């Protein structure tokens, strides 16, 4: 157990980035890629050890460690900031998802990235460090530092290697996230200062603030803080109407970056919602559950309806991402173990499935140089492998049973429906007797819309007559096969055996919910 150090795990990718970017490393593209893949693999395997030694039954954080300055002083003593890390059942899964997807993204970079290789691979590793840091941070200050850190590599990854209006999209992404995180910073400072006023201790430690029940805070203060957190995560998740950065960023980013963007970066938002809004301010979440549920329903249906109308393949997938993240909100608003488990499961499932969908789009784009659905068609004739892999991933996305998405949707829907969160709410002082059950039933209509856009897209892209110009459309190359097959293996495995995943995070959530 001693060799498992979260600090090492987090900064290992950064070391990789430094090795690659340094002048001592050869400029040869192949060597850079091989090294990056190898290094990504090492990080992935190292993170698997954490999973192996993780004890799900033990509540609270594990692998705790606090890095102190020489002399035993905390990291930023005057502010009461500690460099303390730790993982629980939720974050360990997301960390492994991160290392897994980064590895796959590195493999998928072969054809999509054609310039400035050193810079690219080092940026991916910096991104990995930032995201791992967000998931492992046990200190609010550290959390926000890593949160902001991930913007820098993302900006370059979109604006340098992207296509189309890439600078615009990258800037939009940055501004959106940044605007959101300002609110989060304000919220964090508010609760820290409030705690300081009450107890006289200045600390950013997450455990201190878990279930701020110890002292009765005024409801208005709580709601404002809650909204501060919520806006930051709503931008990231994204929640309608803060979602418009996502289609642009996804469409203009190169394939591997889209995979990471959809696969991990959106999860940071969902993770934050659970970590901050649910864990710190559960009382407020109980009050605002109708809002969260309504936003979730809007997310699911609104994005799905837009996805139906999309002509651009990547935009369609991007909107499907938004629609699927609505389920996270729905599960979160349910405020029971099943619902929140559904939210966590959906984050994992969507991480894998949307990465797969973006990979498929990338594979098609590489061969056709178009993403317009009407221009494609009949692609299944020459490339049965791509067609079947895409089919499995697409079916996973529409929530077919025995694939990963189904277990997630089932948990979220069952959780939301059996929830007692609210049976009505006040809207401008008028009592609206619409219970969470009704909203869930409406949200399930999304199941139909998802089927419509996924199957219609699939039919138009892979089935039917083939245009003559795609005669030379060739089947999946080995490295694409590796990426797709590994994603599909995960989708199928956890679809057949969801207990394998729930058994890791459900005990954590159980202990979390008991305190609420």
């Amino acid at each position, binding site marked *: 157990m001693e060799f498992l150090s979260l600090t090492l795990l987090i900064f290992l990718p950064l070391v990789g980035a430094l090795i690659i970017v340094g002048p001592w490393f050869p400029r040869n593209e192949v060597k850079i890629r091989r090294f990056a893949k190898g290094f990504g693999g090492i990080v992935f395997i190292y993170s698997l050890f954490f999973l192996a030694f993780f004890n799900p039954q033990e509540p609270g954080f594990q692998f705790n460690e606090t890095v102190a300055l020489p002399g035993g002083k905390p990291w930023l003593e005057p502010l009461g900031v500690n460099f303390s890390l730790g993982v629980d059942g939720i974050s360990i899964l997301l960390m492994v998802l991160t290392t897994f997807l980064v590895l796959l993204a590195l493999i998928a970079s072969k054809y999509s990235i054609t310039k400035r290789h050193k810079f690219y691979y080092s940026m991916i590793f910096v991104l990995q460090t930032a995201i791992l840091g967000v998931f492992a941070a046990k200190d609010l200050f550290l959390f926000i530092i890593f949160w902001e850190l991930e913007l820098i590599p993302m900006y370059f990854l979109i604006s340098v290697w992207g296509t189309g209006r890439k600078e615009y999209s990258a800037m939009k992404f940055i501004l959106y996230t940044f605007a959101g995180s300002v609110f989060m910073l304000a919220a964090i400072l508010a609760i820290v200062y409030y705690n300081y006023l009450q107890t006289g201790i200045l600390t950013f430690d997450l455990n201190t603030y878990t279930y701020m029940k110890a002292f009765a805070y005024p409801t208005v203060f709580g709601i404002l803080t809650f909204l501060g957190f919520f806006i930051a995560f709503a931008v990231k998740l994204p929640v309608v109407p803060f979602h418009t950065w996502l289609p642009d960023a996804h469409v203009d980013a190169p394939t591997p970056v889209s995979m990471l963007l959809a696969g991990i970066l959106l999860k940071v938002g969902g993770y934050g919602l659970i970590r901050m809004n649910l864990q710190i301010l559960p009382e407020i979440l109980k009050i605002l559950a109708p809002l969260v549920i309504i936003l979730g329903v809007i997310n699911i249906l609104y994005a799905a309806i837009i996805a139906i109308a999309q002509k651009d393949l990547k935009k369609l997938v991007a909107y499907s991402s938004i629609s699927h993240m609505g389920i996270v909100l729905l599960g979160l608003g349910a405020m029971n173990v099943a619902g929140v488990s559904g939210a966590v499961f959906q984050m994992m499932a969507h991480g894998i499935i949307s990465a797969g969908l973006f990979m498929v789009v990338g594979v098609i784009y590489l061969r056709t140089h178009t993403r317009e659905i009407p221009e494609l068609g009949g692609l299944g004739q020459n490339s049965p492998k791509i067609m079947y892999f895409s089919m499995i991933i697409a079916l996973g996305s529409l929530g077919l049973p025995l694939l990963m998405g189904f277990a997630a949707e089932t948990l979220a829907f069952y959780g939301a429906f059996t929830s007692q969160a609210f049976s009505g709410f006040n809207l401008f002082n008028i009592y609206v007797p619409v219970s969470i059950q009704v909203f869930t039933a409406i949200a399930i209509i999304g199941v139909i819309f998802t089927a419509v856009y996924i199957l219609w897209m699939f039919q138009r892209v892979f*089935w*039917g007559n083939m245009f003559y110009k795609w005669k030379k459309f060739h089947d999946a190359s080995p490295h694409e096969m590796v990426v797709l097959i590994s994603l599909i293996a995960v989708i199928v495995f956890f679809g057949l055996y969801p*207990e394998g995943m729930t058994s890791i995070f459900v005990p954590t959530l159980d202990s979390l*919910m008991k305190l609420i």
Partner: protein
Amino acid sequence: MEQFLEFFIENAGIIAALPLWTFLIIIFGQNLGVYDDKRITAGITCTSTFIGLIWSFFIFLWTLGAQEPFSKNITWLSAGNIELSAGWLVDNLGAMMLLVVTGVSLLIQVYSHGYMAKDPGYHRFFSYLNFFNFSMLGLVLSSNLFQIYIFWELVGLSSYLLIGFWFRRPSAAHAATKAFIINRIGDFGLLVGIIAFLFFSLNWWIASGNIYLSFTELQPAAEYVLTSAGPVVYFLIALAIFFGPIAKSAQFPLHTWLPDAMEGPTPISALIHAATMVAAGVFLIARAYPIFEISPDIMTTIAWIGAITAFITATIAITQYDLKKTLAYSTCSQLGFMVMAMGAGAYAAGLFHLMTHAFFKAMLFLCSGAVIHGLGDQQNMKYMGGLRKHMPVVAYTYLTGCFAISGILFSGFWSKEEIFSGLYGNNMILLGVGLIVALLTSFYMFRSYFLTFEGEYRGHAHPHDAPKVMTVPLILLAIPSTFIGFLLSGVLFLPSFDKYILAGQKAITHAEHHTGFLLPVISLLIALAGLLAAAYLYWDRFKQVRESVKITADNIIRITKPLYALTTNLWYIDKLYYAFIDNVFLPVCNFTANFDKFIIDGLVNLTGLKIRFEGWTLRQFQTGQVQTYLAILFSGLAGLALIFVLLQLLI
């Protein structure tokens, strides 16, 4: 002997697992290049199904002596208060369905070996077939409502794959997507229904400690829900659950996918879209019967939905010229019959009809497949005729099927008669509808027979007989089609189907039976009337008579023009849907997309634009001319000084 049978019950899941293994063997065997022989694929497929059939037979033997259904479960997913299980449940109903599914599957797999012999996608076809068998058997063996939902969607998927088997054809691709989406609408209802049911009965399940949503405990749970939710909400829940069968069993108003599903290869039409999968809806109604039973309103709704479907699709079938489409609409109609019987409380009769229908409808489809195969993919009956001389076996088996489905002494007679007597005790209007549909059924089936097999050949291809591998399954299917109704009707010394199926079901109310001779005779006479009408209008032997009396099919069509247009246009239901999609749904989607793009994103960009404008305004002062800055700086200084001085003076 007991312990020997116990083994099969304990491991009943193997029946469903066998096709899954075969599926994986074919997939990996093909893609990794292990083998390339079609006979190996067909061999392992048929062997696994055959083992399944034997296994089902032993299970059937077990159920004859068993008092309690057997069920075995594992937890599939649990979180908080939700615990969902998967496993298998063996009872009389399940055993019956197992036998039907494996039996029909086996024959159709043999048939497919001949039918698909020249198709390049042979292995793909068989792997799909196995996947379908896995899902269907899983559905039959499901032990609870949640598990049945899983397999419910999986059979939908296999149907999607098989309809889209020839995915290069745009029509096939379209039909597959349509089938899946319409089934998804039903799944939506089913899911909402199941979850709502679970929500209202959650405390009951927790208190009783049973497997959640288990079929064996459905009745007390349903009563609990009825008392806790009230009759109106209960009706809505049951209606939502009934949505599943509406879509899967192609009931009005979601029946339009089934005729389009005939784009798939004919063995698929026989297996999935006639004999087994579409019957899953009826099966679900039977499984969840305790839920429907205690609410008379939902029972009435079910019965009427069935009646409407039976009537509408029967009228459409009359005017169809596509052989397979005729059969497809006939399937819809017969399914409507079964649903109607279920809704009217004739539980056993509906299932009895399900079983007999599975045999003869599969056979009819396989006959049509043989005809289409023999004519080089010609499906239009206008270009057929006189095929009895070219393919006698097919013709005679088809004729058997016609007799069976029309209810003239062969097996369909016995099951239909039971439905009629069930309706007689329940609702006379429904009985009237049923009899009209029986008349129509007999008419269109014999019409298709006469158009296809009698008279002169009107096509251009050279008809050739079907190979043995295709005719043998036909003959084997003709046997149960002829006799099974009679054998199991309870007239003979053999155990009656009703008694068997109702044996384990304590709760289900027995429909009243008036086993007088009046009703069977009437139904028989009606069927014969249909036969005679069809013969008169379409059999060449009556050509002379027809022309002398001037009452021919064409004349009738001319007289009943609006009605004819109504049925040829499929009652405008499909057109209505497409009009809705084109004129309402897609515009709404496009509008929303544009709203998102221009209004929401526009607002965001407007914010950016506003800030840029402010920046521009401020930039005007930033000329880069030091002198301007100096001027501003010093005038400001002078101004300040002036204010200072003035202040000094004032104070």
